């Protein structure tokens, strides 16, 4: 129905049509296209459109092609052959141009693909700008009423979602909650696990997910329904279209009728097998649950309103709820565009990436221009001879254009080859959480753009070289003077490149230092040598607290019997969970929040969390004994400064518990986080249905024993194999590592380009001053004198560049902090090291051509001129 002509073909058709009738022609093409869509389908019509555009290009170019083939085809082929020969005769020059240009183009292609697919391409929802996420905003802590302080955004709790869905919004059309779960799918063959999206039915409308088969979830709260995702439908049901007619699945012990199959949009909400309805029972809607902020909430803004109005309404609703419920008191609300929200953590990196790609392409072009200019001087005698033999200006121009187009084409091809192979590794460097990163590939559009750019820059740079060489006849003894304007320009460019290299290297050094420092931060626990797995108890067998207690005890007992040091926990640091539970130190005080952990007795030992005071849990802390609590030193310091907290009773979600121990604080969200307040409860007194199992030992060594234990215990549990706990920490570093790699790679490429630029400039100058040097040496100037003269010129350029670079770095410090987070890049040793490195490299780049200048026999030099 809504098939549209292929965009690229349409652009082509537009380009090649005559300007006066362009719109009419396009309208004619569209009219026929629509008819062909109607009669023969969209695919045929699209192919038809492409053939029209390509044949149109041919029709338009034919007169020119005819002319070319009739009058000058042979001449062109002759020039082509001559260009190839000439380029092969100067392999260093050709390699230099192709190498430099293709590095620049490949980085542009890779970066362009990344930026396009992750950032610039619109999200695959209808009207993506109107899809928003709703947040609750935490009030700033007492005493720090700084209006500019950024408020912490929180997800929403079940009762709040219920309220929002019951609210008569004016700015928002639909509100939907989204969360994930793992559901057991029971069938005759046995039980397997499915990853489920648990959503409000409105989500389908908000994200514009149209079922491929059947329908979306209905609004009927009682109906047990499930929608399958396409990959799961294919793998589990063999893509059977009859699945939506009367099939049902037993998920989490309840029967769900299969009502539809959908394809999930890329980017959000991520992969899943099945989609089921989000429903809350009365227990989840009590006042106490208002603090359980763990659900994503999406909404679609009404077209009559804008984002700011929706955000304001969300805020009003939360503020109004604050009047009635203490959990919302002082809190606000906010609506944020979903695409912004998904990309927020990566925007800085992506911006950096994009900017570097552009800068490097420009640098490459500038350097190639330098190489071309140097060669032009060399070619002047040849040019003069050819003109003297009767070659026309036009003929020379054509020869030079063919040569530069050839270089551009080869560079473009090499660049695409590089970019194609680079994107794979580059994609693995990008944290997997970056939305749509799996879609990044070298698309036809970007490849075409890069090839065009290659031809264009090759042609442009070649044309520049041609015009530089045109003005001057090979006047003997005047070459240095004649070449002075390009030299002045190139000096500035080389200095600019040195400056950029310095800027990148110092910034990269700053990030590296920051990373090293973060690695030294005491996380409060010791992830090294711990393996983990996740166990979830599902099904009727584990419906009572007692059955859970028995299973956890059994699991730990069997692991111990095999000599493994094991523990379980519901909320391990860095593992991605977040369980802020409300507590009161005394009944009159304000409610505060701390991270709630339910742990087994061995937890502190296995995780290496030090005991500061009192005791940890023992097997005697069980159901029926005194409810006990271990708190972190952060919580102890906050409420019991200068006194012992042991023996104090605090109220945790309505239940009084006695503090028996104080342990070191752990960081839950990374080394940059201020350690949160924490408390721990023994598993015996609050057995949960899920936990991380933590085992001391390398996964390889303990995996088999662990798998056996799980099998003995309950084979239907489907426990994933053990993985090293250090994974969570290294994942945290992924984004930082990515920034470092990008900046590092670009600093290296920049250094290479700047070195090459400096080298070719100095070499060029030496070349054009050959006669002058010869004269000086014939008059008795020492080799050392001449050598140091040449080197001084290169070094003074490098020094100017460094001064510029360090100034730019200093000025950009606030900006860098904005892009990379609170990174301290002002370590004085970094600039010193960078200056040393860049100085050494540039010295080398000027010393090599300087050496060649003094190695020349003055007599030979003078005679040749």
């Amino acid at each position, binding site marked *: 129905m809504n098939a549209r002509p292929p965009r690229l073909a349409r652009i082509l058709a537009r380009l090649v049509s005559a300007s006066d009738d362009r719109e009419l022609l396009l309208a*004619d093409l569209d009219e026929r296209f629509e008819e062909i869509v109607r009669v023969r389908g969209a695919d045929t019509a699209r192919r038809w459109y492409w053939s*029209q*555009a390509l*044949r149109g290009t041919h*029709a338009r170019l034919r007169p020119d092609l005819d002319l070319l083939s009739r009058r000058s085809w042979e001449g062109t082929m002759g020039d082509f052959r001559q260009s190839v020969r000439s380029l092969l005769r100067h392999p260093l020059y050709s390699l230099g141009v192709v190498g430099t240009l293709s590095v620049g183009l490949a980085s542009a292609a890779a970066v362009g693909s990344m930026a396009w697919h992750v950032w610039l391409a619109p999200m695959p929802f209808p009207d993506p700008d109107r899809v928003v996420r709703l947040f609750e905003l935490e009030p700033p802590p007492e005493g720090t009423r700084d209006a500019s302080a950024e408020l912490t955004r929180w997800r929403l709790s079940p009762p709040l979602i219920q309220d929002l869905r019951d609210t008569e919004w004016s700015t928002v059309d639909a509100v939907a909650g989204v969360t994930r779960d793992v559901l057991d799918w029971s069938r005759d063959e046995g039980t397997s696990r499915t990853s489920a999206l648990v959503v409000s039915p409105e989500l389908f409308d908000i994200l514009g997910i149209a079922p491929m088969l059947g329908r979306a979830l209905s609004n009927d709260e009682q109906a047990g329904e499930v929608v399958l995702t396409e990959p799961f439908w294919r793998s589990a049901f063999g893509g059977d279209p009859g699945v939506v007619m009367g099939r049902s699945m037993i998920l989490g012990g309840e029967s769900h009728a299969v009502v539809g199959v959908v394809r999930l949009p890329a980017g959000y909400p991520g992969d899943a097998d099945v989609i089921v309805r989000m429903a809350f029972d009365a227990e989840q809607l009590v006042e106490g649950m208002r603090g359980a902020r763990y659900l994503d909430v999406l909404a679609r803004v009404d077209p009559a309103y804008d984002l700011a109005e929706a955000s304001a309404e969300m805020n009003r609703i939360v503020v109004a709820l604050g009047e009635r419920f203490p959990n919302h008191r002082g809190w606000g609300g906010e609506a944020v565009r979903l695409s912004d929200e998904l990309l927020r953590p990566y925007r800085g990196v992506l911006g950096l990436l994009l900017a570097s790609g552009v800068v490097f392409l420009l640098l490459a072009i500038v350097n190639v221009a330098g190489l071309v200019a140097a060669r032009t001087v060399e070619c002047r005698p040849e040019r003069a001879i050819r003109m003297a033999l009767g070659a026309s200006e036009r003929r020379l121009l054509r020869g030079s254009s063919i040569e530069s187009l050839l270089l551009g084409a080869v560079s473009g091809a090499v660049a695409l080859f590089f970019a194609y192979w680079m994107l794979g590794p580059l994609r693995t460097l990008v944290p997997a959480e970056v939305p749509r990163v799996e879609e990044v590939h070298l698309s036809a559009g970007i490849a075409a753009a890069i090839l065009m750019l290659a031809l264009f820059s090759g042609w442009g740079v070649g044309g520049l070289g041609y015009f530089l060489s045109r003005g001057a006849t090979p006047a003997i003894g005047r070459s240095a003077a004649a070449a002075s304007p390009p030299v002045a320009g190139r000096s500035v460019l080389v200095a600019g490149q040195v400056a950029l290299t310095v800027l990148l290297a110092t910034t990269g050094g700053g990030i590296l230092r920051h990373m090293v420092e973060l690695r030294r931060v005491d996380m409060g626990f010791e992830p090294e040598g711990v393996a983990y797995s996740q166990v979830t108890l599902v099904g009727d067998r584990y419906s009572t607290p007692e059955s859970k207690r028995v299973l956890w005890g059994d699991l730990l007992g069997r692991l111990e019997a095999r000599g493994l040091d094991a523990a379980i926990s519901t909320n391990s640091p860095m593992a991605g969970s977040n369980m802020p539970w409300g507590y009161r130190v005394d009944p009159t005080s304000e409610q505060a929040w701390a991270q709630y952990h339910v742990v087994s007795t061995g937890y502190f030992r296995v995780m290496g969390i030090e005991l500061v005071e009192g005791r940890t849990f023992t097997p005697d802390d069980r159901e029926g004994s005194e409810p006990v609590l271990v708190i972190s030193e952060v919580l102890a310091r906050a409420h019991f400064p200068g006194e012992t907290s042991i023996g104090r009773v605090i109220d945790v979600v309505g239940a009084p518990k006695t503090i028996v121990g104080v342990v070191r604080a752990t960081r839950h969200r990374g080394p940059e986080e201020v350690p949160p307040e924490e408390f721990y409860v023994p598993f015996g007194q609050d057995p949960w249905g899920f936990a991380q199992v933590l085992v001391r030992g390398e996964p390889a060594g303990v995996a088999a024993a662990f798998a056996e234990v799980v099998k003995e215990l309950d084979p239907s549990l489907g426990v994933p194999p053990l993985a090293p706990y250090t994974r969570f920490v290294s994942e945290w570093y992924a984004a930082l590592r990515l920034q470092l790699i990008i900046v590092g790679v670009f600093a290296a490429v920049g250094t290479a380009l700047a070195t090459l630029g400096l080298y070719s400039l100095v070499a060029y100058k030496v070349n054009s001053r050959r006669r002058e040097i010869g004269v000086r040496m014939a008059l008795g100037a020492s080799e050392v004198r001449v050598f140091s003269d040449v080197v001084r010129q290169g070094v003074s350029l490098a020094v100017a560049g460094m001064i510029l670079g360090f100034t730019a770095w200093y000025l950009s410090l606030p900006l860098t902090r904005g892009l990379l987070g609170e990174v301290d890049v002002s370590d004085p040793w970094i600039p010193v090291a960078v200056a040393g490195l860049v100085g050494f490299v540039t010295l080398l780049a000027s010393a090599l051509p300087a050496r060649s200048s003094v190695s020349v026999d003055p007599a030979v030099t003078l005679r040749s001129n």
Partner: protein
Amino acid sequence: MGGREYLGEFELVVLLALARLGDDAYGASIHSEILEATGRDVSIPAVYVTLKRMDRKGLVASSLGQRTGSSGRATRNYRLLPEGREAMSRSRALLEGLWRGLDQPLAKGVPQ
């Protein structure tokens, strides 16, 4: 101007389509006419280029028009001029003259 020239094959095809269509001929309708009558999917940009050339030669005249119906968009409508008709007749006479007497041998196959 081009009174003495003979038409190219594609020019003739376009002029024939124009003659069949009458005064309501424009790019898309010419394309569809040729497709229906001959099964040949010609290129619309080529039709444009050809019409423009014949416009310059004085074989056809063009004017900006408006499409009737729901779209109501602008079109460039072409009309056959007497010179165009004359050129068509000339081409036809030429071709018919050349074809005369060739029917029999062709039925057996074209002689090399």
